Every structure is written in structure tokens, then in C-alpha cells.
């Protein structure tokens, strides 16, 4: 089975955001970059599928050379090879452009299944997976928390407001992974050593001529006024309830 996983390198979730001099991106000076957490679930699911059904796992990423380290993480987990679509500025680039570049590259590949993370934790767009599936005319199940294969048949479920949706269908298909789908493995030392030798092909990302939307500026969330400590024991609870009712008016 040919399994593709689309991944992105992102600032880790402990990152403290400060705005860069350009006024529309974050200062990346002291930022630690990692494989997007939701993409890890995609990589893990791909590896489990390969272990069960055989085949090859290819990871694709649109990004600059520095994004190679996230690809090496996926290769160290067990993916077989990488394809990097070179582009300098992708951090908050519009999803339509990113999905177009991926679709352009994937059209010439053989694949049975594609995994994406449900979103990248930098842009929080939730879009690349469904857009890519639409461009490739594939069925898409997004934010999947359970996935089972029986040959080329699949059953996928996801949490929605007030319950759960279950989808059945046949590959090829695209899935976006949510937390809870699996427990991503840690890369063993042997995997890390092997990853250094695995191939990563590089070609230029083919974007549409014009971005579909652009970031004009970035701002910090409004400062909330300093809070108050209502008390230092459970005896303060009645006063808290009074404040919530009379001052904050939320009860």
C-alpha cells in the first residue's frame, strides 16, 4: 500500500508568542520547532497501516530547508522517504495555496491513502486536508479519532457536537487525524540514525499565481484587567458566588 502523510514543522505549544518587526508574524528567534502534534498522529496511523498491510510511507511537507528536521522526526519514527516542496514563507500562508502545491506534487504519485493532521498548531486553519481531498477528488473524513481497515474498506469515526459520526467507504481516501486516534511512538536511537540516510527529494512548491487571502497584521489578545484573589480558604466561596452573580453577572 502507498501511504502519504502531509506534515508541517511548527513552533512547539510551549512557545511564548511575541510579534516580529514585520508586524504580521511571530518572532522565531528563541522558538523550538517540532513536528506538528496532529501530524504525529497521522504519521503513527500511516506506520500502523504499513505494519498491517505492507507498503511504503512517504511524508510530504511544504516548507523551507529548516523544515527538514520535522521530516527527519517522521522518518525516525519509521516513514520511508520524504518529499519537500521548497518554499520560504509558509508559516501563515493561505491554506488554498498550500493544498494546491501538495495536490500538484501528489498528482504524479501513486497512493492508496493520505493522512494529514486536522490542523497545524500555528495557523489553526483546519483546511489543508479537506481542500487537498477536494482537489484530488478523494473522499475525506476529517478529525478522525478511530480508524479501522479491512483490505481497502475503512470505518472511520469522529467526535461532533452532541455525538459521534461514523463513515464507511473504500480507499483511496484522505483522513485528517485528531488527538485520541493513536499514541504516536517515540523515535528510537536506531530510527534516528537510519533517518539520516533516508532520502528526501526536494522540488519547488507550485503555488497559484495569487494568494487567496493574506495576513495584513498580527496583534496580541486584549490584556485582561488584573484579577482578584477573593480569599485564601474555602470560606471565600460564598463571596465568590456573590461576585459572579452581582459583579460579573454570569450566574
Amino acid at each position, binding site marked *: 500500500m502507498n501511504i502519504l502523510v502531509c506534515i508541517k514543522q511548527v513552533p512547539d505549544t510551549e512557545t511564548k508568542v511575541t510579534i516580529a518587526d514585520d508586524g504580521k508574524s511571530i518572532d522565531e528567534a528563541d522558538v523550538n520547532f517540532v513536528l506538528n502534534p496532529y501530524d504525529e498522529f497521522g504519521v503513527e496511523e500511516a506506520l500502523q497501516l504499513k505494519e498491517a498491510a505492507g507498503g511504503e510511507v512517504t511524508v510530504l511537507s511544504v516548507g523551507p530547508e529548516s523544515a527538514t528536521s520535522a521530516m527527519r522526526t517522521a522518518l525516525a519514527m519509521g516513514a520511508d522517504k520524504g518529499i519537500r516542496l521548497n518554499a520560504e514563507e509558509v508559516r501563515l500562508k493561505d*491554506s488554498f495555496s498550500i493544498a494546491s502545491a501538495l495536490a500538484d506534487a501528489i498528482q504524479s504519485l501513486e497512493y492508496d491513502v493520505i493522512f494529514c493532521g486536522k490542523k497545524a498548531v500555528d495557523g489553526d486553519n483546519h483546511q489543508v486536508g479537506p481542500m487537498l481531498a477536494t482537489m484530488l477528488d478523494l473522499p475525506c473524513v476529517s478529525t478522525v479519532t478511530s480508524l479501522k481497515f479491512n483490505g481497502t474498506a475503512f470505518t472511520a469515526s469522529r467526535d461532533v*457536537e452532541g455525538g459521534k459520526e461514523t463513515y464507511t467507504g473504500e480507499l483511496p481516501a484522505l483522513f485528517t487525524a485528531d488527538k485520541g486516534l493513536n499514541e504516536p511512538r517515540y523515535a528510537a536511537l536506531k530510527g534516528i540514525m537510519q533517518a539520516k540516510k533516508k532520502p528526501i527529494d526536494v522540488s519547488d512548491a507550485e503555488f497559484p499565481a495569487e494568494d487567496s487571502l493574506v*495576513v495584513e497584521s498580527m496583534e496580541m489578545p486584549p490584556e485582561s484587567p488584573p484579577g482578584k484573589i477573593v480569599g485564601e*480558604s474555602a470560606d471565600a466561596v460564598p463571596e465568590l458566588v456573590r461576585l459572579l452573580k452581582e459583579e460579573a453577572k454570569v450566574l
Partner: protein
Amino acid sequence: MAEGILVFAEQRNGHLMKAAQEVLTAGHTLAEESGTGMAAVVIGPGADSLTDDIARYGASDVYIADGDAFANYSGLAYAEAVRAAAAEVDPGVILFAADSMGQDLAPVVAAKLQVGNGSDVTEVHYTDGSVTAKRPVYAGKSFVNIAFKKSPAVLTIRPNTYPPAENPADATVQNLDVAPSENALRVKATFEESESERPELTEAERIVSGGRGVGSPEDFEIIEKLADALGAAVGASRAVTDAGWRPYSEQVGQTGKTVSPALYVACGISGAIQHLAGMRSSKVIVAINKDPEAPIFKVADYGIVADLFEAIPRFIEALENQG
């Protein structure tokens, strides 16, 4: 020239979702601002019973797509119905809710129309034909102001940002003649209702969350009791879901749900930066924690430095006393 607003009015079993009322309210605001009008598209069984509900929120044209093909949700099939409505309306803006269905459907519609999609938008403007919006990135650690370069602009609106407001209109109702391709119906959803009576995290007006300070999965009962006393949803920190005490669907934070309720009560949560990112846009934050140095107190509007097992029973008692 494309102008005006088209809203996807999400419904389930003939019930207009609260998120849809909010999106219609956002759409009405935009229609007023731009001096245009608002149409809505409603899809699936029971859609035709909702035209009055939808008109109450200001839609002057309601397009209905019903029939067997739409009995179960399918992103590709629903996208064909939204496109059929868009072909009638020729809108400058198409709005969805930033919920499970909206976030699945909007990017499909945007990709089909070859335009951009702004996600989880907290503010949107439409003047002189151009669309701009504000939306959180890095789970709300910062916000970006975006401008759309292609028309129509497709947006999903974050729940709890446009409180539903009625603006009754006389609506013209039209049935869409749309038959999704077999291709679009390859995969569709069956829905299974959850047994929980509690509100959904992302839609809840009130949330009670527990962290590592709760101590054990069994002790989480005290969080549930307070949640039920407040009519609130139950949330959890990453430490708690990673430990398997609670399901991932309850996690609030950068790798969980981003929430903005009117009241967020954090119990035994220290306040890691990735947790704060997911809940700091809550209108009122209460923190109960026995560690006075916990970072959660820096974002809390009201804090109580106390053992949650002593404070929460008093909280429940006080709520019961006020009737």
C-alpha cells in the same frame, strides 16, 4: 458583481443549531454594514420546517436542499448544495459555523470555488466589496487581521462570538434542484447521539475544568457535580487527558478544544501556556487552586487559593441556596 451574504444554516433533525443562529446574526451584521442582503441555505431532512426560524434571524431568501442524498452528512454532497445556492445568490461572502460540520464543509466549498477560507473568525467586515477578518492563531496566543483576495470570501465563525439576535425578515423560499454525483456520495456519515446530557464544550455558556490537582479519575466526580450544578460542560487539562483520566474530547488547550464560554471555572489547573491559549478568551475566569503561585491566577478574574475538595462543595451548596 458578486455581493451579499450566503449563510450555511446548520441543522440537525429539523432543529436549527445555536451556532447557525450565531452565524445568521453575523451575516445580518455584515449585510447591514455592506448595504446588501442575506440569503441562507439549509440542507437535509427537516430543512423545510426551518424557514421561519431562519427568516427570524434576517435571511430574506432561504434555499432548501432536501431528499435522500442529503439524509446523511457528506462533505462533498453538502458542498454541491451550497454551490448550487451560491450560483443563485452570487454572494461576496459565504459563512459557516466553526464547528465540526462547518470546519469540514467550508474548506471543501472554498476549494471547489478556488477561493480562500478564513477559519474560526472572531470579527468580520465587509465594506466596498472587500472582506477583512480577525482570527486567532497559535490557539489564541495572538490574532491576525486577514484580507481576502478572491471572491467570494469563505469564513467559519467561532462559536460564542456573535450572540444570536433576531432581525425578522420576510423570506422567499426556494427548493434547490441539486442531485449530488455518485462520486460525492461515496462516503457519508451516520450520526450517533451521545448519552451525555451536558452541553457541548465548544458551545457551552459555562465550563468547569479539572486538572492534575483533582488527583485521580474517580475524584473527577466532584468536577462533574459542580458542572451539573452550574449546567456547565466538563473540561480537562492536557495532563488529565494524557493520563487517561478523561477522554481527549474534553481537553481544553492548544492541542485540544479552544473555548470561549461566559464562565470558565478552572479547578486544580496550574495554567500551562498551552492550556491558557485554549481558554483565555472566556469572558469570566474563576480559578480554584491551592498553590498561590499557580500561573492560572494571572489570567483569572476571580481566584480562590484553597483545596478544591473543600471549596467545590461550598460552591455547590451556595448555588443550591440561591435556588
